[in-house]
């Protein structure tokens, strides 16, 4: 299949995005330049917490080439960075100012901005700025007692609560209670391209432009217009190539506001490109949570109740997402299992670290780890197998759609379709689970620390409510699909082109897909929350269908045939009722629909149509991950040998790209499971600021990954039946690796924290060895 030229849905065709990217013609933020541009460099706080006394910019201003230096007093009229959803009264006081006013709250916080003719000069000048701070004691542990954020405001702005049933009564009735204290480390998306923003003001049209946009250009446009007091018509965002998104790119940060405001006030384009150290301390962090969770089960291991108290380490401020990550954690924690009674209290805590927000599979990477740890613990306590305990708790196919009295991403949770047990069985068969168990057991006997892990999970995708697209067939026969989607490298253009090509029966390579341009289409959902394919592809499908109908209508007139006797084959309308040589191409039809064309009749000009897709609920793909790991007892290093990802996608538009998402996501997730952590010392100083101390997985850490992609449960939420793949690879990595490492350790110890570093494992193994026990004896 791979490389085949079958045009439409279901074909693993190569990507239309690739040629410019392999020839060096990509246009990433750093590649965008405008004549007379200035370069911005930020001075950042080197204290985690303190009172800002003064910022001395005298020496910096004296350097040739420096045009301006701004501190908070130069932009006093600007509001703090707002929430994308609009005002949230209760949280308003915790928003980040564009530049520090009176108190620094994390290392990396922007204190001053230098604007200079040359980026090297801007950096020279920034080094000469003297920031005077009286240090205050920092908060570095979100689970300690809350303190004062500012006068009268606590470092716990809110507690995210969800739940249903009678939890207390359920625990009284439970046969067994299992309690765990579990932590997920602070890590994040860390795309290979750092952030970048280029602001430009076109005074001739009174239009402000932000280049280097990503993720949600249309929604960000609304946020920026609101913050800057501009009309929507007076601001546009432009997305070029984006070097990885993963949740952190395309948020609105202080730097985005600064380049826009400076472009207007200094009258020149402003370019800012983040360096890697800045990225590690200034772009959104994510994940850090500590869960104190308790489960009550019956004697067969069926969940009766879960009571969870967790501490979400938000960092220094609440950014554009508000409390979304913690809310999602609450709403998605139960996963694929029945859970009659549930209570969760998420303590949303501010600390003196880099602010946190979404990272690919937010709230699920964390809670899949927590819930699946719990399932393993229940199995161990009751002496039943880890597979069996899961099987007994699964929601059945016949119960779909399954409504949960919970909310995720502001959407009532209704699991739309799925046969979880079928996928479990398929996964076990595919990896030969029983053989793996035997193999692991015999290797253990021979002294190896080898383990087998399993995790089940439900993902979410296709957040609505609505998206639109416009399909335009030009008189050349080329087709343009104008979308409000966005691309961060997932293959968006190809997927949309395939859907359009399917409907119009044309070569997908003739389709140009426009995205990330607020000046081309009024609305757009962008690309986040695994929604781009689900929402925009369905909208494209509707628009392309309208174009098809219009083309057939014109062709019927020209060919003197009934519409129902016409079809489009290879971009030409043909008759299906009688053998006929007569054909008419889409290009010719577009020609007949020119404004001045006499054959147009009373139809609107152009072979063009707009389509909208609206959905009530998200759609829920699901998966099973299985892993075999081997611990080096000498170093404590975990080697992941083998992985299976079984995933039901509903319907795959391009299986090759889906596989790419799943494998890529899994390997990224391995980082947070084994290597990556933003560490801080007790003074709140970040210790992981380069790629030498924050370790991304390399080619050497990649296991043999098998993908079982199934289409057993098409979504009932959209006509194409599709569900998303973007976050399905990463969602359960922490869970499955912990399960496997735990299994390898046997009773030596259990895994309660991510990442599972060699230091921690080595300490466990050494302690065990000092006690002179073998695994079997202990």
């Amino acid at each position: 299949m791979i490389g085949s030229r079958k045009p439409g849905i279901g074909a693993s065709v190569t990507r239309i995005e690739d040629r410019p990217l392999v020839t060096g013609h990509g246009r990433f933020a750093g590649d965008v330049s405008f004549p007379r541009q200035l370069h911005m460099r930020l001075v950042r706080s080197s204290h985690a917490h303190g009172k800002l006394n003064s910022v001395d910019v005298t020496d910096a201003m004296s350097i040739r080439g420096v045009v301006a230096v701004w501190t908070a007093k130069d932009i006093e009229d600007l509001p703090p960075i707002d929430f994308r959803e609009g005002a949230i009264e209760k949280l308003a006081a915790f928003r980040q100012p564009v530049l520090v006013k009176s108190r620094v709250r994390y290392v990396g916080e922007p204190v001053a901005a230098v604007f200079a003719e040359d980026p090297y000069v801007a950096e020279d000048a920034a080094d000469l700025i003297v920031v005077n701070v009286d240090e205050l004691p920092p908060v570095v542990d979100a689970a300690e007692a809350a303190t004062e954020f500012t006068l009268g405001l606590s470092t716990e702005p809110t507690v995210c609560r969800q739940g249903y049933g009678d939890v207390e009564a359920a625990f009284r009735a439970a046969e067994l209670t299992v309690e765990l204290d579990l932590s997920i480390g602070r890590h994040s998306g860390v795309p290979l391209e750092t952030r970048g923003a280029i602001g430009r003001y076109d005074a001739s049209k009174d239009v402000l432009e932000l280049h280097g946009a990503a993720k949600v250009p249309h929604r960000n446009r609304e946020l920026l217009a609101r913050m800057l007091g501009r009309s929507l018509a007076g601001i546009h965002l432009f997305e070029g190539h984006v070097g990885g998104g993963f949740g952190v790119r395309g948020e609105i940060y202080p730097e985005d506001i600064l380049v826009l405001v400076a472009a207007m006030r200094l009258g020149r384009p402003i370019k800012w490109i983040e360096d890697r150290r800045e990225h590690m301390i200034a772009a959104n962090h994510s994940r850090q949570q500590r869960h104190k969770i308790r489960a009550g089960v019956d004697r067969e291991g069926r969940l009766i109740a879960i009571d969870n108290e967790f501490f979400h380490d938000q960092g220094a401020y609440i950014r554009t997402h508000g409390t979304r990550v913690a809310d999602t954690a609450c709403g998605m924690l139960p996963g694929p299992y029945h859970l009659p009674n549930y209570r969760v209290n998420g303590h949303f805590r501010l600390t003196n670290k880099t602010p946190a927000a979404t990272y690919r599979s937010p709230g699920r990477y964390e809670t899949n780890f927590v819930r699946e740890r719990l399932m393993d613990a229940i199995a161990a306590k009751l002496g039943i197998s880890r597979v069996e305990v899961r099987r007994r708790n699964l929601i059945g196919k016949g119960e779909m759609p399954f409504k949960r009295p919970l909310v995720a991403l502001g959407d009532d949770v209704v699991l739309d379709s799925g046969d979880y047990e079928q996928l479990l069985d398929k996964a076990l068969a595919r990896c030969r689970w029983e053989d793996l168990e035997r193999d692991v057991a015999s290797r253990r006997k021979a002294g190896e620390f080898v383990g087998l892990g399993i995790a089940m999970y439900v993902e979410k995708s296709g957040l609505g409510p609505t998206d639109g697209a416009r399909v335009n067939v030009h008189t050349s026969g080329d087709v343009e699909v104008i979308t409000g989607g966005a691309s961060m490298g997932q293959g968006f253009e190809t997927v949309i082109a395939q859907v359009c090509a399917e409907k119009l029966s044309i070569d997908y390579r003739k389709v140009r897909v426009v995205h990330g341009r607020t000046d081309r289409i009024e609305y757009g959902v962008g690309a986040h929350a695994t929604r781009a394919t689900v929402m925009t592809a369905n909208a494209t499908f509707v628009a392309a269908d309208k174009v098809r109908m219009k083309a057939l209508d014109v062709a019927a007139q020209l060919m003197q045939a009934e519409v129902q006797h016409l079809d489009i084959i290879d971009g030409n309308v043909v008759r299906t009722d009688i053998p006929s040589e007569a054909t008419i191409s889409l290009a010719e039809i577009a020609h007949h629909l020119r404004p001045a064309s006499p054959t147009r009749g009373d139809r609107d000009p152009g072979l063009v149509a707009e389509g909208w897709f609206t959905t009530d609920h998200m759609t829920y793909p699901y998966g099973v991950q299985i892993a075999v790991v081997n611990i080096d007892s000498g170093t404590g290093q975990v080697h992941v040998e083998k992985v299976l990802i079984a995933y039901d996608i509903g319907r795959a538009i391009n299986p090759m790209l889906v596989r790419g998402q799943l494998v890529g996501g899994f390997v990224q997730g391995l980082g947070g499971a084994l290597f990556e952590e933003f560490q801080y010392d007790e003074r709140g100083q970040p210790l992981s600021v380069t790629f030498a101390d924050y370790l991304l997985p390399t080619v050497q850490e990649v296991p043999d990954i098998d993908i079982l992609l199934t289409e057993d449960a098409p979504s009932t939420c959209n006509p194409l039946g599709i569900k998303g793949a973007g976050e399905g690879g990463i969602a359960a990595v922490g869970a499955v690796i912990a399960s496997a490492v735990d299994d390898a350790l046997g009773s030596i110890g259990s895994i309660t924290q991510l990442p599972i570093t060699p230091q921690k494992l080595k300490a466990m193994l050494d302690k065990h060895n000092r006690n002179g026990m073998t695994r079997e004896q202990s």
Partner: protein
Amino acid sequence: MTERIEICLDINSKVYRVTIEPRKTLADVIREDCGQTGTHLGCEHGVCGACTVLIDGEPVRSCLIFAVQAQKNKIRTVEGLQSEEKLHPMQESFIRNHALQCGFCTPGFLMLAVGILEKRPNIEDGELLEVLSSNLCRCTGYENIVKAVRAAATEMRQRK
């Protein structure tokens, strides 16, 4: 600001005469002064490898050397891989094997792989993986990069 000097760089067999500060890195000069923006900067401390170019055939991190140090050498960047419209087998193989997603690390991987295979067409597979582990990718999980490089290696050997 330090004094600017005039230097010549030979990039993809074309000579660029540029006036720069001596402290400017090769990567910045290639991108900003020579306009060849296919070479990317991912970390500027020599770890990620996105800025890999070939200097006299050797893969080099262009963020770690100054442009003035490369005046006497032949520099090759991703823009020089194809011959006219025809893509290099490594570029073709990356497309065919879906070895890129966002494409930011891709030029670095292409130059690294081409550099090593031109010098050592019969490199042993374990060693090839060792070499490829010197660059970072955050999207693909590397599986398809490895597949693409292996396939291109076979093709490059056959073309010899």
